[in-house]
């Protein structure tokens, strides 16, 4: 499947998880795309960890404001009714449970709801930025990622082997192939993506999956 299409499938399915009135933080990459698919009747307030609420779309060319970017450094706008604040308030909002959902990418997720997305020892050490606070503080942590890595290897594992971003933090995993809920009993496969099968999902997942009684196609 085309990478752009995969991303779109994931972002669309994530968007349906957001509820009217939610405060949401979207990570860089696929999570950012989610904003494009939020239904009109659902009003979501986007939080940007560099210090504001009411994150709006990219500005028109020529209307960029040097002092207004998202946490990825891209020019953005602020919606009517938004608010700016400092980094302490920004993370008080995040850590204090005032963000209803955070959507993040991942290198690995596992059966315990552990998440690894901030470093590959000896190779890539970008740093955790705000991710560790987001996964600790947000009411709901949604991982949005491709089901397998570039080499087709599973990213949903029995146990993460990369350094963790957070322990027992993930609530929901959404890939182009599956929607998986992290429960106290383990990973519950609730939905599968278009053009795949339960068998294929199970095969491309290292972790054990509990199959829901009524697995839907999203």
């Amino acid at each position, binding site marked *: 499947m085309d990478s752009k299409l995969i991303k779109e499938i994931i972002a669309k399915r994530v968007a349906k998880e957001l509820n009217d009135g939610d405060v949401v933080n979207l990570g860089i990459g696929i999570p950012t795309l989610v904003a494009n698919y939020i239904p009109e009747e659902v009003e979501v307030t986007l939080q940007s960890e560099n210090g*504001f609420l*009411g994150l709006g779309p990219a500005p028109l060319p020529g209307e960029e404001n040097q002092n207004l970017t998202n946490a990825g450094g891209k020019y953005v706008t602020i919606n009517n*009714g938004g608010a700016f604040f400092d980094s302490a308030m920004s993370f008080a909002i*995040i850590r*204090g449970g005032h963000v209803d959902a955070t959507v993040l990418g991942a290198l690995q997720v596992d059966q315990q709801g552990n998440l690894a997305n901030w470093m590959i020892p000896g190779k890539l050490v970008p740093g955790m930025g705000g991710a560790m606070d987001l996964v600790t*503080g947000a009411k709901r942590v949604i991982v949005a990622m491709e089901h397998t890595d570039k080499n087709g290897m599973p990213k949903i594992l029995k146990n993460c082997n990369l350094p963790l971003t957070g322990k027992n933090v993930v609530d929901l995993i959404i890939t182009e192939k599956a929607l998986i809920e992290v429960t106290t009993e383990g990973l519950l496969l609730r939905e599968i993506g278009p053009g795949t099968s339960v068998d294929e999902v199970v095969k491309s997942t290292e972790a054990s999956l509990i199959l829901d009684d009524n697995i839907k196609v999203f």
Partner: protein
Amino acid sequence: MTTMNKLMSIDEAMAKITDGMTIMIGGFLGVGTPEGLINKLVEHDVKNLTIIANDTAFVDKGIGKLVVNKQLSKLITSHIGTNPETGRQMNEGEIEVELVPQGTLAERIRAAGAGLGGILTPTGVGTLVQNNKELIKVENNEYLLELPLRADVALIKAKKADLKGNLLFAQSARNFNPLMATAANLVIVQAEEIVDIGEIDPDYVMLPGIFVDIIVGEA
């Protein structure tokens, strides 16, 4: 897009407060206290409240009225000296009073709102405030571990609110109001002026609207 309507009548809003709740109330000697909400609380006569507030103001002003009407069973505060009725009820054992240094009170409320497990403060070391608290040494300095303070409800006074709940406060009436709004399950704001979304400059918002659940006008 739906518009989350946070506007409510003062009666509807205060009907949400029931006996035994823990309530934070903004203000400093009554300045910045939502007087209209207090009056309604007195009228509804809910009882056994735990009140968290800087002080109990005066017998005829602010939180003092709740004390006089005997609606408190517990009080967490930094100062009761301006309201003799509070001292009387404390001395007679009618209410339990926990005295907290003002800066510690502010930090404990902020810690709850910010998701911190506690803060280490030098304030109160070697005094009665230290009783029953963990003393933690960091680089040869001693600190008290002070724990977060949360509430069921926060009653807040603002100068201006937009329909999303973004708030502006006036002068020294700000005090504990924005902090308390971060640390309660239900936040009710009484605003002197209510304006449309977009009328408050995002740079000057003193408390973001996501913390506010209910907005009422002046009584």
